[in-house]
Structure formats: structure tokens, C-alpha cells
């Protein structure tokens, strides 16, 4: 791992529950201090949006996205990632190497926002509905399926046997018919 300085574009997904409880600015400060603690220089760190996730992550359906542009080595990024994985409100992050920071992003810098302006919506109802589905599945699972699966082959076997016996009896009956007819003709001839 080399010690060259690179520019990174970073995106952090913050837990909406913690953003509501502690406020957006406190969360952003935590991310900033974590990055700076490991030797990265934070050029830009701003709210990118609060939006629903395309798929649930750890029972969450929504997240607050934080966009950052930082300067640091691969080692600092790796350490910061590790700390964020273990601690704090960031449940997913991504760092991408870039050539330069766009001018419009640099103008924004470390954006100051009021906590009230960041509306981190509650996503608990969707989590509850997920659990309800699981419970329904769990209730549905026991006995009936096993019985059906066992009963089905037996029934089929019986049916198959029944069909086979019916076929044999019909063939026997068909075979017997000409014999009876032949016996009747011989009787008439004798008479």
C-alpha cells in the first residue's frame, strides 16, 4: 500500500433513526472527525439527499446520503472504512478515486445546514411489514405440506394401480369374449 495522496469521492449512507435522534450536523461532524482522525483532508462534505433505498439494508428502507470529496492515502481510507464499519451511524460507504474535485462541488465546501431542514423520514412501517410476512410464512410452514407431499405419491400409486388393474381386466374380458363365442358356435354345430 503506497503513501501517495489521492482525491476520493466518498458517499456515506446514514441511518435515518440516528439522524433524527442526534441531528444531521452531529452525524456529519462524526464522519468528518473520523476521516480527519486517520489523516484525510475533508474538502467537501454535504447532504446529497434523503431517499428510499432500492433494496432493504439491515431492515432499513430509507437513508440519508452524505457526499464528500476528500484527499488522503489508501491507508487512511482503509482505516476510516474499518472504523465506520464497526462504529457510528454510517451503515454503508464507498470511496472512489477521482482525478480532481469539480469546481461546483468545491464552492459548496462543508455545507452548514439546520437540523430541521434535514427530514429523515421514519422507515419503521416497512420493516414491520417485512416481519409480518416472515411470521405468516412461519405459520404456513408446518404439518400440511408434509402430509400432502407424503399423501400425494400414495394416492397417485393407488390410482396407477387402479388404472393398471382396470386395463388388465378389460383386456381379459376382451380376450374371453372370442373364446365364449367359439364355444357357442361349437355347441350349435353339435346340436
Amino acid at each position, binding site marked *: 500500500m503506497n503513501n501517495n495522496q489521492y482525491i476520493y469521492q466518498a458517499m456515506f449512507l446514514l441511518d435515518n433513526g440516528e439522524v433524527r435522534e442526534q441531528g444531521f450536523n452531529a452525524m456529519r461532524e462524526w464522519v468528518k472527525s473520523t476521516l480527519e482522525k486517520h489523516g484525510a483532508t475533508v474538502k467537501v462534505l454535504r447532504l446529497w439527499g434523503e431517499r428510499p433505498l*432500492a433494496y432493504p*439494508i439491515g431492515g432499513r428502507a430509507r437513508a440519508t446520503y452524505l457526499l464528500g470529496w476528500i484527499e488522503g492515502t489508501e491507508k487512511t481510507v482503509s482505516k476510516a472504512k474499518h472504523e465506520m464499519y464497526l462504529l457510528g451511524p454510517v451503515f454503508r460507504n464507498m470511496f472512489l478515486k477521482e482525478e480532481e474535485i469539480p469546481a461546483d462541488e468545491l464552492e459548496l465546501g462543508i455545507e452548514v445546514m439546520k437540523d430541521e431542514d434535514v427530514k429523515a423520514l421514519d422507515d419503521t412501517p416497512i420493516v414491520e411489514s417485512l416481519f409480518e410476512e416472515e411470521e405468516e410464512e412461519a405459520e404456513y410452514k408446518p404439518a400440511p405440506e408434509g402430509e400432502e407431499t407424503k399423501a400425494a405419491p400414495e394416492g397417485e400409486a393407488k390410482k396407477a394401480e387402479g388404472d393398471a388393474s382396470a386395463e388388465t381386466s378389460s383386456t381379459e374380458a376382451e380376450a374371453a369374449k372370442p373364446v365364449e363365442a367359439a364355444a357357442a358356435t361349437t355347441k350349435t354345430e353339435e346340436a
Partner: protein
Amino acid sequence: MTEETIKAPAKFDFKDTETLLRYLDSQGKLYSAKRTGLSSRQQRQLKRAVKYARTLALLPYAG
């Protein structure tokens, strides 16, 4: 080609989900280069942008 090809941006950005969605089908699968009409370099850039967006839950995984 009978189908109209979409005008590609200069650079694919993983944050621009509206643009990326135009290159995905209803299942979330990426269209082939034959269908998108992109060059191989652009197709690779698009592929990377879609993968980054999926990692950040901006786009769904195919399925």
C-alpha cells in the same frame, strides 16, 4: 438498427440514476452494447456506474 439509440452523456455518473435507468430493463438488468449503441469504452463506464449505484442502493440488483 431499427430502434432509436439513446444519446449518451459525456461521462456516466453513478449518482445520475435517471440516466442510468434508461439503460436498464424492468428487471434492473443492463442492456447489451448492441442495444445501447455505446462504444465498448462507454459500455464499460456505464457498467461501472451501475455497479456503484447498486452498491449504494440507488439502483436495484437484477432479479
